[in-house]
């Protein structure tokens, strides 16, 4: 398998497993990722961690594969990259990237499609696209603008500057930098905490925030109202309120 799928209680861990190629994407990896994302959508999975085996996180498209079909990029994106980015974003649960090493090209798209990024000290980020005459894909042009704002996003994508983990933290690209050997444990700890959060509030928050990127204020308030209404009907809310009141009266 070029994608290892393991379970840590409620958390599904997806490990890109082509360490000899720094986990570059191939059709096989896309197909296994698509299947894993389908499994991740099941309700008993409460959080997802994406990481890479070996030295790298993911360095984007495997160039050896491209050699066989140099002009097939559009078709590859349509059939493999784009559906997986959408499937990952559609997961109504938190997705964490445990970024263990070099991240480039579509690997950046993968990392940014996640909801929370934790980086090892040895992680690095290089856009790579423009440097070889290509445009950012796998939503890298979307998420960088969203995360960094236009000015930083354009400067970074076109200058092709390599960011180390600390620089990525300073820019807001990652949430936390940890020692290399502590990366997976720390990310799993974060994932487990959100996995055990009451009800569906985390997933609903993700939906609200995705909606906010294209909504007007009035529409956003309306969706907040509807989801809050649904959240208050979830038994977890009644339990939490009862527990809070019991604690206060003690």
């Amino acid at each position: 398998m070029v994608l290892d799928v393991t379970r840590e209680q409620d958390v599904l861990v997806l490990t890109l497993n082509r360490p000899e190629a720094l986990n570059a994407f191939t059709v096989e990896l896309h197909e296994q990722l698509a299947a894993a994302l389908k499994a991740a959508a099941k309700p008993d999975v409460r959080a997802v961690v994406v990481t890479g085996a070996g030295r790298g996180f993911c360095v984007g498209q495997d160039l050896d594969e491209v050699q066989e079909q140099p002009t097939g990029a559009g078709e590859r994106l349509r059939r493999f990259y784009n559906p997986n980015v959408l499937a990952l974003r559609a997961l109504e649960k938190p997705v964490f990237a445990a970024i263990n090493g070099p991240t480039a090209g579509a690997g950046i798209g993968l990392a940014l499609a996640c909801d929370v990024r934790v980086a090892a000290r040895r992680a690095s980020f290089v856009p790579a696209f423009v440097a070889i005459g290509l445009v950012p894909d796998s939503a890298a042009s979307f998420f960088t603008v969203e995360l960094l704002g236009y000015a930083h996003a354009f400067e970074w994508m076109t200058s092709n500057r390599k960011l180390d983990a600390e620089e990525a933290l300073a820019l807001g690209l990652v949430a936390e930098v940890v020692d290399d050997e502590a990366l997976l444990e720390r990310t799993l700890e974060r994932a487990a905490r959100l996995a055990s959060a009451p009800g569906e509030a985390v997933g609903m928050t993700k939906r609200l925030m995705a909606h906010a990127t294209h909504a007007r204020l009035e529409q956003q308030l309306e969706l907040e109202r509807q989801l809050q209404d649904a959240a208050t009907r979830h038994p977890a809310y009644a339990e939490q309120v009862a527990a809070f009141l019991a604690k206060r009266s003690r």
Partner: protein
Amino acid sequence: MAAAPFVLVERELPIATVTLNRPRELNALSEPLVVALMTALSELDGDREVRAIVLGGDEHVFAAGADVKQMAATDPIDFAFSGYVERWDELRAIATPLIAAVSGFCLGGGCELAMACDLVIASETAQFGQPETGVGIIPGAGGTQRLVRAIGKAKAMDVILTGRRLDAWEAERAGLVARVVAREAWLREAQAVARTVAAQAPIAQRLAKQAVDRAADVGLAAGLQLERQALYLAFASADAREGLTAFVERREPTWSWT
């Protein structure tokens, strides 16, 4: 044991909710289902206490289209003279405001059924499409006519000739859907809209619905003429007196249906 009814009717006056009930067949619109639906709707339409009707499927599917299995086994001459498609015209005679609550798949005949309602409230999960040409037929219950009126030729041709589905947001931007709501709230929100509709003056609602419906059929001058006559008719009702007076007196009106 009696078979499960094809449609379920729930009255919570002043509204009623009609639910398509063939979930295992993705609410395929078989002839018996269409007959049951039209019967239920015209019965509710005759009940003055029902001021608005919500028509829905379930969370996963509004209706996924005609009953393809049934159609595949039907002789063309029998099909043409069965009156199946003509039964759908009975929807046009329903005077009570009709609100489609769409969650999940709304394809082919399902999309046509939603478009035949007065307005569509869609869950975020709704998907609209007319995939008929992919199986060698064409939309036959108003799809080619109502879709072009709802969203214009460019998008209607895209949907009908390619089979591409519109998600809820695109359908809303295109004008097929009045509001998109959270998937948890698709039925509740449609019922809330129905209650708002039901709170307005019933005679005026019916005249307004007729006037809007005719807009697609007649030229502007005739439409304006028709609108004016409907206004004079509404104005002559006791409910118009009541509504206008209540507004001036800053109180809630009480409708008498006269």
